């Protein structure tokens, strides 16, 4: 289990991104549709709360859709199924984009969405594993998720299970030291069924990551920490799905893998893409309408 790493270099996955893992045309259309759905629902839910993280959810919409409709092994009717793939996110504040997907898949009734953030409702700004079927781990305090994911992946090995553990983290999140503790631990223990995804949207709360505390060069950092590292366009849902499937299929890998998903914070709504201050905010229904129109037009835009 422990020990020095073998000679396979950090980035030589023979399967990575191979065409055989690509979604079919029908699948691809469905996946794109689900990513739009996630965005549209996020707008609807935030209207209930009157404040929310639109842009953090939008940058991750293709990632959520790809994972839940195209990559992960799930039984929505049995949320605690022991063999399921796990997903958790350090950037828990993007949960508003994930809840609609979980409801859509049948983890819980869609009516629950309508009470988003209201007293007694299980759905808040951050995902809560004790309250929400389908949520594998709670978050909200940025930086814990990769550690929890290491624990899950290691437990899977100890229990002889073959599920995969996916952990999404923000690029600002890389400033939390605990992420690097987990990075060392995951590499040392060769947690080869652990797949991290960095939502590299370039922004955090107070501004551009590179202005706040730069985390570049991200790829060099993860390679130097012993992770197989790939870069992908995080809005090209076909490429994302192909890559993640191929990484799941690569049973010969001897280490964890990190996917750097290049994304745009606020993707789909022009003024959010252009104005990083939108990390948190509220859209008056008039503006929401225009945002919805833009999102619906994404399909055409590309």
């Amino acid at each position, binding site marked *: 289990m422990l020990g020095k790493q073998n000679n396979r270099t950090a980035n030589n996955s023979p399967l990575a991104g191979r065409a055989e893992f690509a979604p079919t045309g029908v699948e691809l259309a469905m996946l794109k549709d689900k990513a739009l759905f996630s965005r549209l629902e996020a707008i609807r839910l935030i209207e209930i*709360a009157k404040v929310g993280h639109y842009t953090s959810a939008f940058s991750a919409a293709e990632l959520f859709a790809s994972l839940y409709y195209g990559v992960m092994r799930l039984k929505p009717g049995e949320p605690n199924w022991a063999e399921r793939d796990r997903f958790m996110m350090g950037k*828990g504040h993007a949960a508003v984009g994930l809840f609609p997907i979980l409801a859509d898949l049948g983890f819980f009734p869609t009516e629950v969405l309508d009470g988003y*953030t*209201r*007293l*007694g*409702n299980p759905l*808040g*700004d*951050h995902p*809560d594993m004790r309250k929400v079927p389908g949520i594998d781990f*709670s*978050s*909200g*305090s*940025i*930086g814990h998720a990769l550690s929890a994911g290491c624990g899950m992946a290691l437990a899977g090995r100890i229990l002889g299970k073959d599920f995969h553990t996916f952990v999404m983290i923000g690029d*600002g*999140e890389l*400033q*939390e*030291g605990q992420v690097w503790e987990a990075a060392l631990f995951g590499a040392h223990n060769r947690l080869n069924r652990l797949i991290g995804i960095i939502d590299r949207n370039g922004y*955090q*709360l*107070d501004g551009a990551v590179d202005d*706040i*505390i730069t985390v570049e060069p991200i790829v060099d950092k993860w390679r130097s920490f012993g992770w197989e590292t790939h870069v992908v366009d995080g809005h090209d849902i076909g490429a994302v799905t192909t890559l993640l499937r191929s990484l799941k299929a690569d049973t010969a890998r001897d280490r964890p893998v990190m996917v750097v998903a290049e994304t745009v914070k606020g993707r789909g*709504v*022009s*003024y959010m893409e252009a*104005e990083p*201050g*939108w*990390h*948190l*905010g*509220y*859209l*008056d229904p*008039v*503006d929401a309408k*225009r945002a919805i129109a*833009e999102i619906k037009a994404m399909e055409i835009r590309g």
Partner: protein
Amino acid sequence: MNRPLSEKSWQYRQLNAQTPGLDALSDALLELVQAGEPVVAGTADLQYSNGLAKFARECPERFVQFGISEQNMVSAAAGMAAVGLKPYVATFASFLALLCCEQIRMDVAYSALPVRLIGHHAGISLGFYGTSHHATEDLAIARSIAGLTVVAPADGAQLASVIAASADYAEPIYIRTQRGRDPVVYQAGKPFVFGKAIKHLGGKDLVIIACGSTVHPALQAAKALNAKGHSVGLLDMATVKPIDSDAILEAATNARMVLTVEEHNVLGGLGGAVAEVIAGEGLPVKLRRHGIHDEYSLIAPPTHLYAHYKLDSAGIEEIAAGLLA
């Protein structure tokens, strides 16, 4: 999309402008800078939440942005203090008192360096952001750390007074604040005295002891009960540590009952501190500790939570009336 957005839409960077109460911290710090104090202010990717964006804009050479690295912020603040600066560092109370608990003890409190730790959005004031963003343990944690002064101002004016008074205060301080929307309790400019409770009302039947966010609603509750013929007192225990034992004992000697009200777990915080004083004297007064009863708060908008947990004036009045019955 070239049309400007509706006036009702807003984004994070406008939070400051929307919430004028958030200026209190920056304004008070800028005054210290102007007075020649070697102040630096820092935050961990929350400059709009705590209003330090204003300080950063007006005094960039004394502003430090730490990113999402709270522990580095606290230890680095201690390092800055060791070289002669007076650092004020701010983040959500949960990410300060809990996440940096050990750095606070070792690098700040044990080292006795003049660092000021501002834990804002304390208690359950972050509503539906949930437990990760709630801090109902921070007073207990901060109180257990030797050498750390713990204050919880009730409003922006009192926060400003605390900051002003902190300039000449040798010890490190943990300052617990809310979200810049506090109803006014105090007039600006009132000098703050560390370790002295502020007596708003005397009471023979019951004395309420509150701090921070519960002072305003408790005051309203006390007034309402007094209007109904009761004798209910109110102490603002703005300094939770060192606690003003004299004020507690005076209250506990003159009243039949004491009610502590805090936006915090009823274990170990303000109520715990008052219990230690009362039990230490063997006074036969009955103490009721009100707050969050050793559970995790539900999620909801903050005002809904305050109503649910009876931490608004109506709720506190109800609790107090129950004791008086």
